[in-house]
């Protein structure tokens, strides 16, 4: 099946000389939820902005359902809805008017019934005649989603959809996104919350420093993220592993003063209890211990190191 979005060697250098994207290749499958994960300033928003036509690329190409975003921008953009990161709204417009305006911009005939349906789905119908400046931040976020959906897009970009949104609203938002996917919309969201990607995505791409470091199915990535390490600080240095401990994934570090045990948090048994028992029977005394989970941050760091 054709990917719904195909990005090839996409690069962007801003006038300031800052290189926001350094040759990104990526394909988005039809109907999936793709999460683009990365720290602030990684290039997430630039990538989205280029696909949506807000920023001109410096090099490379993007096609949306086979339409080049530059040569055939009308066809490409008609398919896309964008929910920006910032809560940018026309303060003095009413909810209904601003959503209808978006539909018009995308060249669709007015359809009040459809707009009302979108507002109902997003629990905004009670606010249809309210001015935007009267709405809370969470409500404004919903209005931005309604605007993005007003022209019935096939692809929806959500740039940090839950940044600064409280927990209950975040759950609602996830529900909305799931429903959209069920209706066949492809969804690309950016986030720097790992939980969000974990909750929603089918696939996850990690971007840092303008490079796409990895694209994986969520299940595979979570397995990597599930790895934990137990660090045991020993009273007396150890030169070699005793026989009792050969069956564990252990490494000796720090001139024998530290034992590092790697285990899978998601696994059925972590074998920590038996490890401690075996340590005792081997006569190894522990001074201190702590556990460490490989975080997204670690994955970044190791990925960046590999790249270098």
């Amino acid at each position, binding site marked *: 099946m054709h990917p719904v979005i195909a990005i090839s060697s996409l690069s962007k250098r*801003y*006038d300031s000389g800052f290189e926001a994207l350094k040759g990104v290749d990526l394909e988005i499958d039809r109907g999936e939820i793709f999460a683009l994960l990365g720290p602030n300033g990684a290039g997430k928003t630039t990538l989205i902005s280029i696909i*949506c*036509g*807000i*920023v*001109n690329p410096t090099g490379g190409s993007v096609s949306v359902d086979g339409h080049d975003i530059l040569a055939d*921008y*009308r*066809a*490409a*953009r*008609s398919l*896309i809805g*964008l929910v*920006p990161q*910032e809560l*940018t*709204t*026309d*303060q*003095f417009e009413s909810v209904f*008017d601003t959503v209808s*305006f*978006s539909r*018009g*911009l*995308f*060249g*669709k*005939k007015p359809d009040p019934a459809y707009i009302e349906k979108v507002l109902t789905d997003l629990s905004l119908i009670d606010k249809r005649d309210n001015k935007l400046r009267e709405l809370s931040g969470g409500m404004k976020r919903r209005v931005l989603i309604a*605007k993005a959906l007003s022209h019935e897009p096939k692809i929806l970009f959500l740039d940090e959809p839950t940044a600064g949104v409280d927990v209950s609203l975040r759950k609602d938002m996830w529900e909305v996104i799931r429903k959209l996917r069920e209706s066949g919309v492809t969804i690309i969201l950016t986030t720097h919350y790992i939980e969000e990607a974990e909750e929603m995505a089918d696939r996850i791409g990690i971007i840092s420093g303008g490079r796409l470091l990895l694209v994986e199915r969520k299940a595979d990535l979570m397995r990597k993220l599930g790895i934990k390490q137990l660090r045991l600080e020993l009273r007396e240095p150890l030169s070699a592993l005793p026989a009792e401990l050969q069956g564990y994934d252990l490494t000796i570090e720090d001139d024998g003063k530290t034992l590092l045990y790697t285990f899978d948090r998601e696994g059925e048994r972590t074998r920590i209890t038996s490890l401690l028992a075996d340590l005792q029977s081997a006569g190894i005394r522990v001074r201190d211990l702590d556990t460490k989970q490989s975080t997204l941050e670690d994955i970044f760091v190791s990925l960046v190191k590999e790249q270098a």
Partner: protein
Amino acid sequence: MNFQAVKSIYAFEMNRWRRTVLQSIVSPVISTSLYFVVFGAAIGSRIETVEGVSYGAFIVPGLMMLTLLQQSVSAASFGIYFPKFTGTIYEILSAPVSFFEIVLGYVGAAATKSIILGTIILITASLFVDLRIAHPFWMVAFLLLTAVTFSLLGFIIGIWADNFEKLQLVPLLIITPLVFLGGSFYSVDMLPPFWQGVTMFNPVLYLISGFRWSFYEVSDVSIVWSVAAIGMFLSLALGIVWWIFKTGYQLKS
């Protein structure tokens, strides 16, 4: 052609105007009336006629041009600057609209506003003085072309400006002086020869002169020059707008 989008932008802009319509109309009407009192009644009473036209009537085309230029520039510059300022421009840039359609929507709305205001000034003026329009076709043509040209200029300023000061700068420092020194309130013949020469470099002179000719058939420069001047401004403005969109200047960089 995405007519729906042009319509949406145009309607959005006109709606924004409607919300503040009272101040939009009242302030130019009041300032025009003040000009009539000061220049028409107070000073004008000491000037009999200028080239056979009563002074009060003589300044009407200049006053209309003053309003037309100021309002076109300010309406169009604000119209495109504001979404840039609030960030809502993202939506227009990501919509399937061509730059031509964006310009048509914004500039069309700004020109409409200033033409409405110009007409109101004309009606207000007719309460004070006897007006005569010798060439209605040319009068309307000058009105339309000037409104469109200076709305384009306003659009350019709105794109270029990255703060509110710059937005005010051009109308205040360039447009207003050019209009005042372009023969709105006097005939160029009334100036000493040196300043007559300098005034010939003022582009706005050609607009006011042509516009006045369409009323009273008196002009500082030949009507041919006036038509050529407005055509030149229009082409220049269109060229700059075309370049802005081609390069994404201040919008997509």
